[in-house]
């Protein structure tokens, strides 16, 4: 298995704010090290405040790390240009109704990453958009629509299309399935798995639903207080959890129907 993403000794420290009477205190993150193979799915689980979101935001490039290296296909991430970085890692946000600009058509939303990160001409852009829409299962009729005219699932598909349009190596998904109800959730899950099969994309998930995590991922990272507690393949984590923290985490997320 080829190593795609390599994170080593990643740290994020927050300076105590110098302002008078500041109450802002945040726990530091790291050091964190892990690797992700091509075409694999990595899930990050942990209680809230354990640094899952911070970690994926650092990988996505929203937050700059204090120290440590992230390299993709052997190249350090900081040596890549913004465009190369965009083409390597894309992010899908939690709630598509707030991550799609309400004042812009779907067509424009999908054109923007191509215009900014590739030197495609108009024809190539059009073809790429059509290809990506077919991949996520949307008709080209939707290009003239505004996001609020679509249903939640369609918005999810558009958000996914925006991420896939640059054919990235890694897609980061921050709890994207939480806002969907169960049947629609599986539509998106199957869509994600199909895309992975076709394109060989790697996923990094931040998950909260343990059954879904078990279903989708090859590798699971358990985080607590900004540190990795356990990092193993999915079967090992779920069958023989090594630490008490993992055991409690898995116990506290019983299947929905038992509640």
């Amino acid at each position, binding site marked *: 298995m080829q190593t795609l993403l390599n994170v080593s000794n990643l740290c994020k420290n927050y300076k105590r704010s110098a302002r008078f009477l500041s109450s802002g205190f945040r726990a530091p993150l790291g050091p964190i090290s892990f690797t992700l193979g091509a075409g694999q799915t990595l899930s990050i689980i942990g209680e809230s405040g354990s640094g899952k979101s911070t970690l994926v935001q650092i990988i*996505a*490039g*929203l937050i700059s790390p204090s120290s440590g290296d992230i390299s993709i296909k052997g190249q350090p991430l900081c040596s890549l240009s*913004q*465009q190369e970085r*965009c083409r390597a890692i*894309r*992010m899908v*946000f*939690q*709630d598509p109704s*707030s*991550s*799609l*600009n*309400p*004042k*812009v058509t779907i067509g*424009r939303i999908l054109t*923007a*990453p191509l215009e*900014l*990160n590739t030197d495609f001409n108009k024809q190539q852009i059009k073809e790429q958009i059509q290809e990506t829409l077919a991949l996520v299962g949307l008709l080209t009729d939707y290009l*003239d*629509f*505004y996001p*609020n*005219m679509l249903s939640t699932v369609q918005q999810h598909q558009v958000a996914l299309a*925006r991420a896939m349009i640059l054919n990235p190596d890694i897609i980061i998904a921050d709890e994207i399935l939480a806002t969907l109800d169960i049947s629609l959730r599986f539509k998106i899950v199957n869509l994600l798995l199909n895309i992975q099969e076709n394109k060989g994309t790697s996923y990094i998930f931040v998950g909260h639903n343990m059954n879904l995590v078990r279903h989708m991922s090859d590798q699971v990272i358990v985080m607590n207080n900004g540190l990795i507690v356990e990092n193993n393949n999915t079967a090992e984590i779920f069958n023989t959890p090594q630490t008490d923290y993992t055991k409690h985490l898995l116990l506290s997320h019983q299947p929905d129907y038992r509640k």
Partner: protein
Amino acid sequence: MLINYEFNEDKIQSPLQYTWSIFKRNNIAIAAMWVAIILVMIVIFAGYILPNTPTTQVKQLLLPPYWIDGGVSDHFLGTDDLGRDTLTRLIQGIQLTLGGALLLTLIVSILGTIIGATAALTKGLKASILHHFLDALLIIPTLLSALILIAIFGPSYENCLIAVSLSLLPQFIRAIYINIENELNKQYIIALRLDGAANIRLLRFGIFPNILESMVSLLNRIFSLAILEISTLGFLGFGTQFWDVELGALIASSIGLIFSSPWLVLFPGIAIFIIVLVFNVFTEGLRHAVIEGEDE
């Protein structure tokens, strides 16, 4: 946003077209808009529609308006104590006050948007200095700071406009700054930033279309304040020289004649009232249309 015509044809409207279609349903706002357009036309073409030259003096002093006994049709709104035509001076006053306020709103909004956007998009020391400096400026009432500036520059119409715009600028920058700052935390802006969009693109497609509502009410507030401050300064005698007739100055010059010919004070007062009212009703209608369009 889908509208359906008589036969089954669905057409997708852009957010602006949709807002306009909501605005068109509000009759009072439409009426206010037309009056506002007429007023702006008067401002632009005042030079061509003046019935007399503002400085021409006739023998008949203090003529009442045409429809009151003793009025003359040559002087529709009568004449003042020096025999100058009231209608002519009123139109010129509207030109100076309203035109000045419109020009000033334009300049303040352009300058304020540039500075506010720069402040919101930069981080660290520069933004912090601007932030606290503007906070400090905001504690001075705008009219007071305009008066201080006039005292420095010397009274004239141009200096009055400069002073009023400088006194209104901090408010505008502050409001724009807060609006953009709020908008920057929205997910679609973060997503656009992850697409690699530069700041200009971020502002053009991400931020400005989404802060339309607060922009409209902000422009309205700045405009109303500008009208009132220009006429207040004119009334106090700081705004204009004696050959410029600005609405506030018109009231001030004839305040002594209020018992013998009250219309000399009445007409400029009504003009100020109508200008402020009409523009407020218009922009309020616009604002409601924008809000309603966003709720959809």
